[in-house]
């Protein structure tokens, strides 16, 4: 329990940090931010209006205080472009991104662990070398290009699946596959290396001395141990997927947070940019705490180190 409370506490600090970061973002713009946002042709009146709109005429500390108070009340400001509350915009898009990310991580986990187990079982074989080459390829291929290739192959050439019509299951398949395949490579490499290392442990020898078959040793004794770091990576991948979705969503016209963020940046809609960044940070921190919680479930030792530790 103490362990989790600790994690939640440091998670809150990180979120505060991100809020400061996203708050100051607009102040980092070189020169007069408002004039930059509006372009050189803006009249002084327009500049003054936007400055007031963004609250930039207040002293910095007041601005930050307002920002914190508003944020805590769920008010992330109003989009310059659409005039709608930022939180509404985000909450509208968030489920779509989660849908995509969840499907992606599901594919990545299943694919990554299976490939990793097979590689470890046939360590050094052709299959192992091939899948490990794919693992390196996976971190080398630009996600957006893989998305294009997938579209060209499955939509244009084979005509199996549609491009960008809605957010139904059929529309989900291609982007989720792209994300999943990319993220799986990391998982498969880690599962494989983890398994290979675990299999050299003494307790594996004990299991052999019991008369347990290799396959059972792999499943019962090695895999669960090897999966402990994999869980962490899946958590981290979830975060990377949030980043990955940004670009992939763009290619597939998926109406998620990514397209929202990119649109906001292109139009320099700062309240929206700031809100999206803060929101993504919160999601990331939450996922990480959940992963840590999962950790205590699958690894009985973690609890001890927290209880016994300082």
């Amino acid at each position, binding site marked *: 329990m103490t362990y989790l409370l600790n994690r939640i506490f440091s998670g809150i600090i990180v979120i505060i940090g991100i809020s400061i970061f996203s708050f100051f973002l607009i102040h980092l713009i070189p020169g007069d931010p408002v004039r930059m946002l509006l372009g050189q042709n803006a009249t002084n009146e327009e500049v003054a209006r936007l400055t007031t709109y963004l609250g930039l005429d207040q002293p910095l500390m007041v601005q930050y205080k307002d920002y914190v108070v508003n944020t805590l009340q769920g008010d992330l400001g109003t989009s310059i472009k659409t005039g709608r509350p930022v939180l509404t915009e985000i909450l509208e898009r968030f489920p779509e991104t989660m849908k995509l990310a969840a499907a992606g991580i599901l594919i990545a986990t299943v694919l990554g662990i299976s490939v990793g187990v097979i590689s470890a079982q046939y360590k050094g074989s052709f299959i192992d070398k091939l899948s490990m080459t794919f693992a390196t390829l996976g971190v080398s291929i630009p996600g957006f290009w893989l998305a294009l290739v997938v579209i060209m192959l499955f939509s244009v050439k084979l005509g199996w699946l549609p491009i960008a019509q809605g957010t139904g299951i059929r529309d989900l398949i291609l982007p989720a596959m792209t994300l999943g395949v990319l993220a799986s490579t990391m998982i498969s490499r880690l599962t494989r290396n983890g398994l290979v290392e675990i299999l050299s442990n003494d307790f594996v020898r004990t299991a052999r001395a019991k008369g347990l078959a290799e396959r059972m040793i792999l499943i019962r004794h090695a895999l669960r141990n090897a999966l402990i770091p994999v869980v962490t990576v899946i958590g981290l991948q979830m975060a990377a997927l949030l980043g990955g979705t940004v670009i992939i969503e763009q290619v597939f016209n998926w109406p998620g947070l990514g397209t929202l963020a990119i649109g906001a940046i292109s139009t320099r809609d700062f309240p929206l940019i700031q809100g999206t*960044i803060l929101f993504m940070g919160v999601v990331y*921190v939450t996922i990480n705490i959940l992963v840590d919680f999962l950790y205590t479930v699958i690894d009985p030792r973690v609890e001890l180190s927290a209880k016994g530790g300082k």
Partner: protein
Amino acid sequence: MARLKEVTQSLHAPLMKEEKNPALVQKKLKVSMFWKVWNHKRAKYHLIFLFLFLVMGIFGPMIAPFDPNKPFYDALLQAPGKEHLLGTDALGRDVLSRLLYGTRVTLTVSILAAGITFVAGTLLGLISAYVGGIVDNILMRIMDILLALPSIILALAIVAVLGPSLTNAMIAVGVSSIPSFARLTRSAALTIKSSGYIEASRSIGSSHSWIIMRQFLPNITGVLVVYTTLFIGGAILDTAALSFIGLGAQPPAPEWGTMLSEGKNYIYEAWWLATFPGIAITVVVFVINDFGDVLRDIFDPKSVN
């Protein structure tokens, strides 16, 4: 081989028994580092490939058959053929020439971006490890906060501040990798800090900057080389991604990501537009990443992935 391995191990982990500064003992080793890489079969091919890539970046524009921005109005969206080896785009520009010019852009941008990461990351990491205490604590807290955002989001935020352009994308990509690079450098430097020769150096009154420059830095060179290599690969991907979504290089610049972005609109008519730049990026990044992995095996045998 076994002996070489022993020596390289000390690049990362200081020799605990003999409390000498291995970097001073290994002046000659810096030269032999190259040979060690060269003698590794896979690393050798990678080196040759990367050298060719470098040459192409420098001389590419000279061997390009056409001006990358010259439109051939009689040859719009022409498939790869004799005249235009890799075809032409919607404006009738030669894809091969654009690819070759793009090599230089990619090379420059990724090296500069990785350079930003390297300099700032190393500095922050070393300071954090060397000074320790509250400075370390604060710096690493800040890094943790920035690491809580996917690096592409961080890069997007920076582009949002600076405005979209290739230079800004490069800065954004470089800056957004600083947190993870600083963390890696810090942990590498911490293993050096605990060794006796730093204590010894301090006890004879060496200045802080001398210790950092002459004791820490040379001893983590191997590790830094490995990380930087891997970060260059990442930098190429991230810059291309930013250009692809229109926040990096702006048309008509012959940048690979921008080319893909333009090609995206013609996937029905002209598959080659969205194919060749992608292959180019993948191959280059693949070689860099695999090279990084091999370097890691050579210089940092203990780390498992």
